[in-house]
């Protein structure tokens, strides 16, 4: 049975196109079927009246800690790209409701920054669920890495040198591993071919033997089966990084670390995503020239209660400067716990205060992160064919005092007024 919903909106912030005034969004079975001023609403559609309100795509926090109990997950091994963040997700975490109530419908979660290659990230939808499987929009969105993070708040340039070269070494080893695998593949094919030939030979020999002719000597020099190289999960994942199938998301703060990440991208022809990129404003041209996307943040490092060395030269204008130089900039909260993701619209507003274009800032918390993590065909804008993840605000989303009135995920109302739909628990007053 078709489920039809029509949202009659004041201003539709499509993000991908112009703002549509007094338009309608028609939703069929969780997808947007029509978006525009001249939308014919079929009989039987449920009408949601949002006249005079702002309707926007669900917000995305590209640096969320939601669902991850400890705030940050770190493996003691430095190189562990095969770890999957989904294995440590708690779908029952309470803060989800408060974050949802601020219009956030998707979160990108990734391992922490203690490892050099910490593991695989994922994009989750903020729907109520009992298993992570029900929330996942996309797995393996990136391998999270880090260069130049000081853990004891003591700068050690030696460690910094080691960071870059260790990641490089792992990638070089992966290349060798792939060569060996390719070689094995060729040898195996050759072996199979020889084996088949032998079989043919033996067959004809048998036939000849039947005819009373002597068998050829072939049976003795049986082709040797090549030794199968051991499967290595680390290199298997990194092989997909080298194949540009999975991007490498590197957290780097200082210009030297950022440039080292860029060097890796140049040398190995990777899909690189720069994460945090605190001093990116100093090397904005280099980032822009390579068309490397950046997940800037935190806009105000106040989201972190620590005077981390990495943020020493933090400049609130970072996102604005990068964006003006033509870098594709997403904004993340990177709060110290999961609930901080609720500040994502505030983070974008702060970027505007520091010179970022209003539209770019709004895009930085919707379509841009969706593009960076390869989920833009599903979420990030209000377009026909995409998931109906829609938020109704009573004012502009970048106005700190705007209230979220309704949130839909895939056409289902998941939050309405002051409470989560279908939940007894009151979320906000």
């Amino acid at each position, binding site marked *: 049975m078709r489920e039809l919903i029509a949202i009659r909106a004041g201003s539709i912030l499509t993000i991908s196109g112009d703002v549509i005034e007094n338009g309608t969004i028609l939703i069929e079975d969780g997808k947007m079927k029509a978006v525009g001023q001249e939308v014919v609403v079929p009989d039987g559609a449920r009408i949601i009246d949002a006249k005079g309100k702002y309707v926007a795509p669900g917000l995305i926090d590209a640096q969320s800690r939601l669902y991850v109990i400890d705030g940050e997950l770190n493996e003691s091994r430095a190189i562990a790209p095969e770890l999957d963040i989904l294995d440590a997700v708690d779908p029952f975490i309470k803060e989800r409701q408060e974050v949802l109530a601020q219009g956030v419908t998707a979160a990108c979660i990734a391992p922490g920054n203690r490892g050099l290659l910490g593991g695989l990230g994922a994009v989750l939808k903020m729907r109520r669920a009992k298993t992570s499987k029900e929330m996942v929009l996309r797995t393996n969105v990136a391998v999270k890495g880090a260069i130049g993070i000081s853990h004891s708040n003591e700068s050690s340039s030696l460690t910094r040198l080691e960071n870059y070269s260790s990641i490089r070494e792992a990638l070089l080893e992966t290349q060798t591993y792939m060569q060996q695998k390719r070689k094995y593949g060729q040898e195996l094919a050759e072996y199979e071919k020889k084996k088949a030939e032998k079989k043919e030979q033996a067959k004809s020999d048998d036939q000849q033997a039947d005819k009373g002719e002597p068998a050829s000597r072939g049976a003795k020099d049986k082709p040797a089966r090549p030794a199968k190289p051991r499967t290595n999960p680390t290199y298997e994942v990194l092989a997909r990084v080298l194949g540009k199938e999975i991007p490498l998301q590197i957290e780097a703060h200082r210009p030297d670390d950022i440039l080292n990440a860029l060097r890796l991208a140049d040398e190995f022809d990777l899909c690189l995503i720069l994460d945090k990129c605190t001093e990116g404003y100093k090397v904005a041209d280099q980032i822009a020239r390579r068309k490397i996307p950046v997940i800037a943040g935190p806009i105000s490092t106040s989201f972190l209660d620590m005077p981390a060395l990495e943020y020493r030269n933090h400049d609130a204008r970072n996102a604005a400067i990068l964006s003006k130089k033509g870098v594709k900039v997403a904004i993340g909260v990177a709060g110290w716990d999961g609930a*901080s993701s609720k500040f994502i619209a505030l983070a974008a507003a702060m970027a*505007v*205060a520091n010179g970022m274009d209003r539209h770019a800032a709004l895009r930085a918390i919707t379509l841009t992160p969706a593009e960076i993590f390869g989920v833009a065909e599903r979420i990030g804008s209000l377009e026909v064919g995409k998931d109906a993840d829609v938020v109704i605000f009573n004012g502009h989303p970048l106005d700190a005092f705007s209230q979220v009135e309704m949130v839909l995920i895939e056409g289902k109302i998941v939050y309405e007024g002051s409470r989560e739909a279908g939940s007894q628990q009151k979320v906000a007053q």
Partner: protein
Amino acid sequence: MKHKMLLLAILFLSLCAGPVMAGAGQQTLVIKAGVIWPITGSAITNGLIIIENGKISAVGTNLPVPEGAKILEMPDKQVMPGLIDGHCHLGLSLDVFGEIEETVSAITPDMQILDAFNPLAEDVEKALRSGVTSVLLAPGYRNPIAGQMAIVKLPGEKRDAWLINRSAGVKFSLGNEALMYDRRPTSRPGLIALVREELNKASQYQQSKFDPRAEILKRVVQGQLPVHIYCNTVDEIFAAIKLIDDYKLKAVLVGAREADELANVIAERNIPLIYMPTILASKDKDLKRVGKIAAAGVKVAFASYAPRTNLSDLRTSAIIAAKYGLAHELALKGLTINAAEMLGIAQRLGSIEAGKDADLVILSGDPLDLTSGVEMVIINGDIVYQKEQK
């Protein structure tokens, strides 16, 4: 003779300093703005502020513009008083806590934080760009009696007359941070006992045997020097209130995360409160606390703890507080006049009124709109920061 020379030198220096100070602010400056937020009165649309000799001489609409005045026409901008940060560590080269923590001894009231202040530090510049013009510099969190706080104006390019008060009060810390495993106090009751011991000693202090610590604490127990008590949890706040009651301290609570639970107790004593950076909270319950505290009648101002939080945008703290229930008017007062009153500088700062220092922030929009950017900062009538033009 020597003394005379010294006096002459001082006199000469101060004479030099005088004209330099006035020189910059001597020219009459007139700001015409779309909206002026005097804070102590209601907002003025299309008003003007006249600044003479670094002081505000008049505020209003239709005022006669003095001849020869420099006029700043800003019809689409809004003006508010310079923001006052109630508790921070700017200019103290704070990479790690150690640099403001005198951890060898737990009781260091004689320590003056101003001695570690570097007015040229980068974080000072950042705070200035965010609209902060005056700050209370505080020692750290690890000592129950931590030292003397100072009040300074942020220097910017004009580095004159920035010191307001070298000894603005003593900071007490009743927080967890003050407990250490290798020196007294190691426990919460032990911490309170130690503070009491020191205050008792100071009450009985005779000047015949000079003790620099008791010298300061004597002024505290006599109510001459205020204390700012850092406390967060209900038990810490209770302990602070008991100290204030028992020793009749002139006190301000700092941090005070859970003060909403005791808001009435605090309100009936008229104890003002400098609230922690609201952005350090993330759960709705915590974000709503400051609004409840103010609603109970407690006077609230804001603190950044910068750069401990790396927060230079004090205004964000107030906006978040307002988003989660603090009355907008009180959010603005908390950034300005309330802070000025708590720091004892309200006769000079905290509002746009004739006679006060011309410390102003010019914003691209409403002060409580997070997307409003700081366009210009004026201290003592001098433009100390101006946003780069595109």
